[in-house]
């Protein structure tokens, strides 16, 4: 194979985020413009995975300078080609502007969003073409795999992962090396290794981005894991609604087979291993390992009691090891650089980094990787750029439907497994939803419970019936019909569901309710006792709205948006709300430009 030198590489992010903001169109225009200036042999266009800064997409990075262009529109491409690629002049107006100083930042590494991150798992995301095994190998890929298979015994691999202190990144934080050792020690003629890519938390896209951006890293991690436990076959269980991730994984698997990195006698070590992709239909419960394995076997995805643990009896009754995508993503780094290097990042009990998907009311929506032990405040303000619209932060939801809401006053806790558990949340797989003062915490709890209630597989009564009853109570509270004793009932039900459910779906479903009850009880009480939603989110609560005639300018905006046509009045004259028809939805108050509308006390 003859390498071809290009003087400049233009990297276009084609993660799902940037694709949906128009990256494919940008690429098409770029190809045309390059040809127009006869630059197609000098400049290489590379599609990459997610750069993480989805908020600013479509993203384009031009090397050798490493100039970072954001929110590129098709009309901008001509100028980039003519000015930058042809004449070497950076197009200032497309550079990233710092949030508070509005200074233009030309290169990637100087942007605040990236400065505080520590990228181990995401090191190649946005840096290489995920559809090219050659690029992965060129940046050092499969070296760890070769080292493990030819220079280390399986026991040594396990010892290295154990001493690195790697813990499961799917949420619970079980030590990965120990898991591998348990599966290794079970004697059997056949063993399996599975990658759990059934990411289903609302607002979470870490695993998807990693599979889309650097699929070979996951495959490499799985080969090393398989060698360690003695498996010769593996599955990647990924949900069907991740078509791009599946497409790129499929390409990666074929390339790895072509290079003999999957198949027989890998690296001449005598070790054989191959991988399959299993597409999941998108049931949340299939993220639970026993339900996931049932689904691979073609059965209905329902969990079963443990023990026996998968390490003893898993897929088709054989010893099986299941790890999450990000966990496998850490393995090549540990084997290549050693446990010591891995431990040097993070905290004593939570080594390494964690990838988070930042969403909600935050300026820099996107994908970030930070050292464990960093505080929530640093992630949200220094990397995430703070709350949108300059509003006050109310809470951060971590860990998805199984996690909890952390209130603003606890923002200085470090991000590690133990600290998050202590405050009633959990690490989870890495969803981080930021909520501002306009969010109603009762409504948030109801949203997450609605999710788990409809995703409950129905096997265990406490989860199936209990979450339904809890949801009914929350619905009542949100519509102003809460009763004294509801909160105690929610707590009692919640704790019982946690204690008596078979799997972690039920075992954690009440968490969003219990954690908001713990930190925002006054909001629940306002709904029940005063029939009032302090954040003005829950519609139809309490007294009708009234217009202050002295302030009203008669713009009639409120009347146009009232769903009940309850507002009347002549143009430029004070308007009136008919208290009989008003359902207290509060839409009018939100629309009024002069704040003349409020709820009657």
């Amino acid at each position: 194979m003859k390498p071809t030198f290009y003087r400049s590489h233009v990297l276009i992010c084609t993660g799902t985020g940037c694709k949906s903001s128009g990256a494919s169109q940008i690429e098409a225009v770029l190809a045309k413009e390059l040809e127009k200036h006869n630059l197609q042999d000098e400049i290489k266009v590379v599609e990459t995975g997610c750069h993480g800064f989805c908020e600013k997409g479509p993203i384009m990075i031009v090397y050798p300078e490493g100039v970072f262009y954001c929110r590129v529109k098709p009309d901008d491409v001509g100028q980039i080609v003519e000015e930058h690629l042809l004449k070497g002049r950076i197009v200032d107006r497309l550079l990233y502007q710092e949030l508070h100083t509005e200074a233009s930042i030309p290169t990637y590494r100087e942007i605040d969003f990236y400065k505080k991150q520590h990228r181990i798992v995401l090191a190649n995301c946005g840096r290489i073409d995920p559809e090219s095994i050659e690029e992965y190998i060129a940046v050092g890929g499969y070296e760890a795999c070769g080292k493990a298979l030819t220079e280390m015994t399986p026991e040594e691999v396990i010892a290295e992962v154990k001493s690195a202190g790697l813990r499961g990144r799917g949420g619970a934080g079980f030590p990965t090396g120990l898991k591998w050792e348990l599966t290794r020690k079970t004697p059997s003629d056949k063993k399996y290794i599975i990658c759990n890519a059934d990411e289903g938390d609302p607002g979470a896209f870490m695993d998807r981005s990693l599979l889309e951006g650097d699929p070979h890293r996951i495959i490499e991690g799985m080969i090393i894991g398989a060698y360690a436990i003695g498996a010769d076959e593996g599955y990647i269980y990924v949900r069907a609604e991740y078509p791009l991730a599946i497409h790129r994984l499929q390409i990666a698997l074929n390339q790895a087979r072509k290079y003999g990195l999957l198949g027989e006698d890998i690296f001449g070590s005598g070790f054989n291993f191959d991988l399959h992709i299993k597409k999941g239909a998108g049931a949340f419960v299939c993220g639970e390992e026993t339900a996931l394995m049932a689904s691979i076997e073609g059965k209905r995805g329902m969990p079963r009691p443990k023990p026996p643990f998968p390490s003893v009896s898993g897929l088709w009754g054989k010893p099986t090891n299941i790890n999450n995508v990000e966990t496998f993503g850490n393995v090549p780094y540990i084997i290549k650089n050693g446990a010591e290097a891995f431990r040097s990042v993070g905290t004593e009990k939570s080594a390494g980094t964690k990838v988070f998907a930042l969403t909600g009311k935050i300026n820099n929506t996107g994908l970030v990787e930070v050292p464990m032990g960093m505080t929530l405040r640093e992630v949200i303000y220094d990397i995430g750029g703070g709350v949108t619209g300059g509003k006050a932060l109310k809470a951060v939801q971590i860990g998805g439907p199984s996690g909890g809401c952390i209130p603003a006053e606890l923002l200085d806790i470090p991000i590690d497994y133990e600290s998050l558990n202590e405050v009633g949340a959990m690490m989870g797989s890495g969803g981080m939803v930021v909520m501002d003062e306009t969010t109603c915490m009762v409504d948030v709890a109801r949203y997450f419970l609605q999710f788990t209630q409809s995703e409950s597989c129905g096997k265990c009564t406490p989860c199936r019936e209990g979450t339904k009853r809890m949801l009914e109570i929350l619905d009542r509270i949100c519509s102003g019909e809460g009763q004294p004793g509801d909160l105690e009932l929610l707590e009692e039900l919640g704790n019982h569901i946690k204690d008596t459910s078979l799997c972690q779906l039920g075992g954690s479903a009440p968490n969003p309710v219990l954690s908001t009850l713990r930190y925002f009880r006054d909001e629940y009480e306002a709904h029940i006792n005063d029939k009032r939603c302090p954040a003005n989110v829950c519609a139809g609560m309490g007294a009708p709205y009234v217009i202050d005639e002295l302030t009203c300018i008669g713009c009639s905006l409120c009347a146009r948006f009232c769903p009940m046509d309850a507002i009347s009045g002549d143009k430029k004259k004070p308007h009136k709300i008919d208290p009989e028809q008003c359902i207290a939805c509060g839409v009018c108050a939100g629309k009024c430009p002069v704040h003349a509308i409020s709820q009657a006390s």
Partner: protein
Amino acid sequence: MKSLEELRRLRETLQQDMLARNGDGNPRIIVGMGTCGIAAGAREVMQAIMQQVRERNITVTISQTGCIGMCEKEPLMDVQLPGKGRITYGHVTPKDVESIIVQHVINGQIVEDLVVARLEEGEGQ
């Protein structure tokens, strides 16, 4: 893949493809691409550089710069080896490119005949 050695050999070849993305510490070639440079033939010089780099499989970072005021001497081509001063060649033709690359970039010998300016390391940066 039959051995770790095989992977390492393959990686060395493949790294050439990635040069543009991690060029710190490479020799740099800079071409003046202002309007004056392009009018004087800088595009053809650039193409000749690309051809030489590909044929000889060498490790360099190529970038462009705008007009630096010596429009009279365009096309201008600068070469800067790591830790060395920046040498500016003037009136460069595509034919000169080969000798500049072979003598200067590869062998470290400045092509004195074509030099129009020198910048010591750290100066004027």
